[in-house]
């Protein structure tokens, strides 16, 4: 066995090893969790620093190690490899996952309910997520994909709110159903494409998607396969009408769980679309385009309206996630370089922003004992810092320039305009609604005369402030200098957007 290990292997080893240690660390769990989170963040930053920009032809930090062979009746069988590697699309997610995990650990620093379990599960979520974003093999990808469900199930079910049992089961079963649907399609792709191994990258150059023989798959089959993949990834996204697991899961999840759920788990679906469904099934996505776009628009409008109707702060933020992920889906569906870049950037932005907002809803809850927006108000007088953070988070989420969502949403909308013209009015209308529900929330919660505030309410403790401060500074940093992230993406986005429909290397977005 070769010892030529990729740094990504070290990253995964650290994440999983740290998690294992955390589970058995008892009262010292939080320190180990912190060390693991810092370590993974460190490696991610090292990867960022050593990532070669503009080297668009292939994945970087690749390692291909034989894992197992599936018998296919052929002579060689089908190799399943431990293949890892990253490009500019996956790297932002690695960073985001490490950041959000760190933030979660800091925020929950004083967790008293079985801290070893909590931090261990958070670490396991992180490890699984990192795995999803580095895996370049179908089995590996799917394995990590499913691993993520497990800790999240426990996090929601044990540390969650009053209806946590219902929510955790719903989350688990719903998303699992979705994943198994994708699995069939993934298999079909491997088999129908005559893949030599289950790798979809790494040993195969990104640019060489043709090597996966996707164009040889009959068109009707491609459409079916695309449908299955789209459903599976879309539930995770989530797309309307398969979204109802999300509000429940979010409302019941513990704060850190929500942060990871919104910040990272939703991104897995979109990542799957960008990485697998769209580039590998060119005809499928072209044919399904109207449906995908329709669902994207529906999600955008639905998320915005439903957020407006919520009384629960967390539920509101959850629905706003549906809205934002709808924009992501829209951007992915357009499948141009600009739009895919926008989608990745928007996900990065949404990870930071929704992370902040979920931290805030957690803090609001345990500071005031409720998240019901109408029953508290004027919190600025008692908790100015919390209120300030809430304002910043809301503004970031409604797409204020100089905060990170703006460049992403702007480019996404620009790409939408370029491709679809006047349909742009729909998401823009939703943008107004988005501004509306956030501002309405601020008006009721932060401003006005104080009411409903319990006597013992205190402003944010230091660790929560630190966690939020970290996110806010990143939101501002990447808002002012978006190229720090953007420069990674588009080179990879070029190759992700090339499709090989009809033997042409020109990407046909519209049929």
């Amino acid at each position, binding site marked *: 066995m070769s010892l030529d290990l990729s740094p990504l292997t070290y990253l995964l080893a650290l994440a999983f090893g740290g998690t294992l240690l955390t589970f058995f660390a008892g009262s010292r769990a939080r320190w180990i969790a912190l060390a693991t989170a810092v370590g993974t963040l460190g490696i991610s930053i090292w990867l960022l620093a050593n990532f070669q920009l503009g080297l668009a032809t292939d994945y970087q930090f690749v390692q291909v190690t034989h894992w197992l062979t599936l018998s296919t009746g052929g002579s060689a069988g089908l190799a399943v490899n431990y293949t890892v590697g990253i490009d500019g699309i996956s790297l932002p997610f690695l960073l985001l996952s490490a950041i959000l995990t760190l933030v979660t650990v800091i925020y929950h620093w004083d967790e008293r309910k079985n801290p070893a379990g909590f931090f261990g599960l958070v670490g396991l979520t992180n490890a699984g997520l990192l795995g999803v974003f580095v895996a370049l093999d179908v089995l590996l990808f799917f394995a990590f994909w499913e691993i993520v469900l497990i800790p999240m199930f426990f996090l929601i079910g044990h540390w969650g709110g009053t209806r946590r049992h219902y929510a955790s089961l719903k989350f688990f079963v719903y998303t699992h159903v979705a994943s198994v649907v994708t699995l069939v399609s993934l298999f079909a792709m491997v088999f129908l494409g005559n893949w030599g191994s289950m790798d979809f990258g790494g040993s195969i150059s990104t640019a060489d998607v043709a090597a996966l023989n996707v164009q040889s798959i009959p068109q009707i089959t491609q459409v079916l396969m695309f449908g299955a993949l789209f459903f599976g990834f879309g539930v995770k996204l989530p797309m309307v009408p398969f979204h109802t697991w999300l509000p429940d899961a979010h409302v019941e999840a513990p704060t850190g769980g929500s942060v990871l759920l919104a910040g990272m788990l939703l991104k897995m679906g979109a990542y799957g679309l960008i990485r697998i469904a769209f580039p590998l099934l060119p005809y499928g996505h072209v044919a399904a385009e109207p449906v995908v776009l329709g669902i994207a628009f529906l999600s955008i409008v639905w998320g915005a309206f439903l957020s407006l*109707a919520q009384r629960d702060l967390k539920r509101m933020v959850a629905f706003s996630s549906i809205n934002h992920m709808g924009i992501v889906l829209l951007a992915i569906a357009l499948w141009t370089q600009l739009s895919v870049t926008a989608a990745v950037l928007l996900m990065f932005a949404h990870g930071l922003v929704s992370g902040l907002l979920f931290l805030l809803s957690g803090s609001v809850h345990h500071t005031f004992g409720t998240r019901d927006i109408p029953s508290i108000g004027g919190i600025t007088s008692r908790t100015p810092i919390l209120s300030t953070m809430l304002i910043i988070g809301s503004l970031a989420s409604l797409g*204020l320039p100089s905060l990170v969502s703006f460049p992403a949403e702007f480019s996404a909308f620009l790409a939408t305009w370029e491709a679809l013209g006047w349909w742009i009015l729909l998401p823009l209308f939703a943008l107004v609604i988005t*501004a*509306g529900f956030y*501002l*309405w929330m601020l008006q009721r919660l932060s401003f006005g005369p104080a009411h409903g505030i319990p006597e013992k309410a205190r402003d944010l403790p230091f660790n929560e402030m630190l966690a939020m401060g970290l996110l806010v500074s990143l939101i501002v940093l990447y808002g002012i200098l978006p190229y720090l992230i953007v420069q990674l993406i588009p080179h990879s986005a070029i190759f992700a957007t090339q499709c090989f429909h009809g033997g042409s290397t020109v990407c046909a977005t519209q049929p």
Partner: protein
Amino acid sequence: MVGLDFFVYAFLVPLLPALAFVVLGLTGKSFRNGGGLLAVGAEGLALLLSVFFAYEESVSTTGIYHDSSFVWMGLPDGTNFVMGTLMSPLGALMLLVVNIVGFLVVVYSLEYMSHEEGLPRYYAELMLFLTAMNLVCLADNFLEFILAWELVGLCSYLLIGFFWKKPEAASAAKKAFLVTRVGDVLFFVGVFIFFTSLAGVVNPSITTLPYQGQVCPGGQVTWACAGFTFAPPNANSNAPFLAPGTITSPGYGSNLMTLAGLLILGGAAGKSAQFPLHTWLPDAMEGPTTVSALIHAATMVAAGVFLLAITSIYIGFTSTAALVILGIGSFTSLFAGTMGVVARDIKRVIAYSTMSQLGYMVMGVGASSLVLVGPGDAMFHLFTHAFFKALLFLSAGSVIHAVGTQDLFAMGGLLRKMPVTAFTMLIGALALSGIPPFSGFFSKDGLLALTWAASQHYAVALPFFLLALVGVFLTGFYIFRLWFLTFSGSHSRTPGLHGHEPSWIMRAPLVALAGLTLVAGVLPLFGGFANLLPGVQWGTLGYSYTSSGWVFSSSDLMVAIASLVLAFAGVGTAYVFWGNGRVFSLPENSWLRAPHTLLLRKYYFDEVYDGLAHGVILGVARGLDWFDRYVIDGTIHAFERLFSQASERGRRIQSGLVSNYASWIALGLVVLLVAIIYGIPWLDSLWGGG
């Protein structure tokens, strides 16, 4: 003259307040008085710089400095989103306005705000506002413009909500943000059209026009190449800035470009409180008076006009779009004026006058686009208006500071108690009414003359010109109603109301602004100031300053005389009703009652919009929420129940009696055998052996 190289440092203008913002935002509490002096210092430096830049621009022949080297986001396909600075005559003028008023307001705040809670927040937000506003002036392209524009809106939101404990303030802040957001959304689409379509529809001949959108090499549509950036293709070129009359017909009067122009107008209307997106501005008076003066009178609301002005230069409006712009502006000028006539709140009256004056400016941009000259007149009015409107607001602030109420009918007789304030406010009121020699007369006359000229070419503009004239009458009427109600008479209408003059810290800005109001009107006569106002038709009593010098025009004379007469008539009428401490109230059964109520309720726009927001939008949202919970999620639950029921029923097969199990086995055996023995041949024949 230092030369263009010095413009490299243009970024310092926004940077100085930005630094102050960061310092105040992080450590504001450690400053005495909330760090006001720091703000004054930073803003003072910015003012010095902008004066200097404005001077350089006015004497420069080359005119423009452009730097867009900072790639904010870039794509390999050549689409680059850049940030940079563009120092142009218009920008320099706007910079001057912003920083003069900004500086004076910050100084004024030192005393006016000194008793308020949360001063560090106040100054930090003010500094952030000035940063963003300076950035608006210097924006190099539409993206940067939008960025700054939205930040300005944010500061407006935060500062309107400064007294956040008041529910009205919180509500007004939200309203301001949302209504301008609607405009912004339209603005975005307009920009998108420019970005994607301009290169395709631009008439090749207009590449000769240095500041308009260009056809990109190879027909490629890229960011920098699609008219998205304001700057000329070869930065720092020696091409002269637009001389009057050099704009030819846009030549690309396609419907799409018309639409784009109207969408830009939508953005401008949101920011500049033009009909029908005007409802937020009166409510915005819930903010501190200083904020009203700076943001909601002099600078931010004028940014909409600025947007229209630069768009008219760099891209141009089609005639249809220009006509609509003219119409909206003119209509708003009258529409706002009518509401100003009945308002009781001193600040709201001034707010309506702001809307009205902004309407004149918007009308001016439309008119200048119709007659194919630069938007100099509108910008000139923006310039003068900034001073006298800030003056009016700060004077009103002085009054409010002294008497503690904003109700006009509670005041009266303050002339003797606050002579300086009364005097400065009088200057402001005269300027607003358009009485010479105050600056308002000159700039407003230019606009009216321009609109008259436009109506000569496009008859459809004539009614709007008349509306604007009626607006002149109303302006004189309502502003002097305000002045008389506040200052005239021998005693106040509220017993125990005692006014007093503020300290010199507050008086100094008043006096300074009064001085500026006096001189601003004639500034174009001096030096190269007119260079800052491309295409200005500084028409006074029939004389227009054009490229060929002073030119007499009898029609201009008529316009000037008409507006003068109307203004005096307005003031006179006001005197008749309100002068000398008189209080006019409408008779109970007057036929004017109904219109009066209509005006007081602001034409019921708030009610309609509220109904739309709460009734329709929120109603739809609640309906969808119900659907989401009970239909979509209900379907999921139905599946769950289905399986659960199936499981519960299926369990009963397991009877526990072993004979039953054996029966099932026998049944299974039979089925299996039948399937194998008869099923196979049957299926075989069915599928033809396949």
